[in-house]
């Protein structure tokens, strides 16, 4: 078990190093970062000043080593725009994105698991097919468009919920639903598949033979086994959601990490962009690692991998 965890941790560190390199390379794509920062209409002198001020006149390898060294110690660079540490900016905005992500995940799980069970219990019946069709339709919904439709309908026509910002919990309802939408089809299929396998397994047959109630069989015996992959995927989905919330934060004007990234990208604030890419990647890597270890703890058969 320890060897398994150690191997996974080493792998995760290697992945993190690679992403670190990529996020560095990303900001150097344009060739000359100083020109991008200075923007249109800057004189050659301005560009030279910026280049010196941000240490961009040093050779690339030196800049890279410097960036890795400071990133490892938690210093993700300073924002050009806010003149603040990028890490501090992220920390400041994180609660909004985290609340949004967890709301989305909760809505997704609370929808996908019951309907997945329902689908599995009636495999092949009209209700199962209807749910399958709903999942396909949901998958085709562009999230930003769905967000705008919900704003028009619930925010404007009915006036139930705020259309932008997040002063209290109500501000998270609509964006949470939109974010959940993207994860529901996958989680639904996974629950359904797992439940179908579990319901046709020997232990469920034994439970049936013992005369246990239907509810007890489904919820206590089958669901416990079907839930494992769902939990693992849910952890990974949360990682995707945090990364994907950028569009939804833009639509609902939620000032989270995604919004920060969007703002920084449009304003050429590359240290922040670099920092957010790295930050989201590390969160994703950590969540995947957690899911792997969790699965291995729950299911010893997986520990050999």
């Amino acid at each position, binding site marked *: 078990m320890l060897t398994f965890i150690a191997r996974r941790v080493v*792998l995760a560190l*290697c*992945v*993190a190093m*690679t*992403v670190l390199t*990529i996020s560095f390379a*990303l*900001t150097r*794509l*344009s060739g000359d970062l100083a020109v*991008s920062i200075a923007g249109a209409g800057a004189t050659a002198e301005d560009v030279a000043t910026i280049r010196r001020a941000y240490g961009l006149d040093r050779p690339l390898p030196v800049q890279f080593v410097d960036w890795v060294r400071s990133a490892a110690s938690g210093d993700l660079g300073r924002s050009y725009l806010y003149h603040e540490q990028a890490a501090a900016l992220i920390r400041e905005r994180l609660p909004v994105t985290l609340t949004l992500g967890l709301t989305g995940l909760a809505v997704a799980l609370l929808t996908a698991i019951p309907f997945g069970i329902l689908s599995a219990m009636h495999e092949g019946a009209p209700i199962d*097919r209807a749910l399958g*069709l709903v999942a*396909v*339709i949901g*998958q*085709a*919904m*562009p*999230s*930003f*468009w769905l967000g*705008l*439709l919900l704003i*028009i309908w619930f925010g*404007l026509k009915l006036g139930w919920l705020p259309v932008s910002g997040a002063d209290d919990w109500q501000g998270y309802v609509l964006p949470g639903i939109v974010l959940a939408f993207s994860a529901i089809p996958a989680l639904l299929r996974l629950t359904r*598949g797992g439940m179908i396998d579990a319901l046709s397994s020997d232990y469920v047959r034994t439970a049936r033979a013992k005369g246990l109630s239907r509810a007890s069989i489904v919820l206590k015996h089958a669901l416990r086994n079907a839930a494992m992959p769902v939990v693992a995927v849910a952890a990974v989905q949360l990682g995707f959601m945090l*990364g*994907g919330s*950028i*569009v939804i934060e*833009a639509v609902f004007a939620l000032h989270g990490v995604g919004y920060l*990234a*969007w703002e920084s*990208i*449009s304003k*050429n604030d*590359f240290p922040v*962009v670099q920092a*957010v*890419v790295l930050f*989201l*990647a590390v969160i*994703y*890597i950590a969540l*995947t690692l957690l899911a792997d270890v969790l699965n291995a703890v729950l299911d010893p058969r997986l520990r050999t991998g």
Partner: protein
Amino acid sequence: MIRTLATLLGAVIVLGTLIVAICAPLLAPHDPFVQDLSLRMVPPAWMEGGTTAHLLGTDQLGRDYLSRLIAGARISMLIGIATVMLSGAIGTTLGVLGGYFGGWVDDVVMFVITCRLAIPVILVALSVVSLLGSSLTLVVMTLGLLLWDRFAVVARTTAMQVRTLDYIAAARAAGCSRAYILVREVLPNIRHHLVVVATLEMALAILLEAALSFLGLGVPAPLPSWGLMISEAKDYMYFTPWVIMVPGVALFVLVLGINLLGDGLRDRLGAARDA
């Protein structure tokens, strides 16, 4: 029966959009770029104040919505197909190599896939477009270089299953080269799984392009990308909601069509359920 109908509907939507995309200049009733400021925000023909001259109305600059929608179909299909060709080539190559050879090759492939999954797609795509300047080619290149993960995963798993089969052993015994076996034996036998992935990825690419353009860092204006049309119209949606309905419904219907077609293909070809 219902499933067959759904697949058929998907096929009709995708083929229809493809034909519209190819014949776009012939079908468009107006020039999609010509502005007429005296005819701004004319509602669609079936609504009050609409005219048959502009069946789907006009946008905030007086450009004919139907013509822009038709030209936009071309952009969406181009993005979808070109991205899938690029990402399919990358992902399939990686996956087949890893799955067929196993060992350290597979370790490397798995590592590359894991790294790719850790990268936040939208964020990186936005940064690349912002740094290099928005253009259709760049969006295709960026999405193509990012969206190959599912191809790689499925190609790897299926190649792994195929490599133990008798016809591969036979080809090996007959002295066929590795390259021959990979291209002529392995690839044709995992093709149907990859086709299903291709539909999923095409839908994803189209949605992502729309999202990038919506955020202002995808296809540059005045090109009529559906995502960009929604973005340009959203300031007016409070008074006239139909302005975001027209491009939004088009986007939704196309992606739905591709997904329905993909689902049908998956059932018919018996491809992996997790594909």
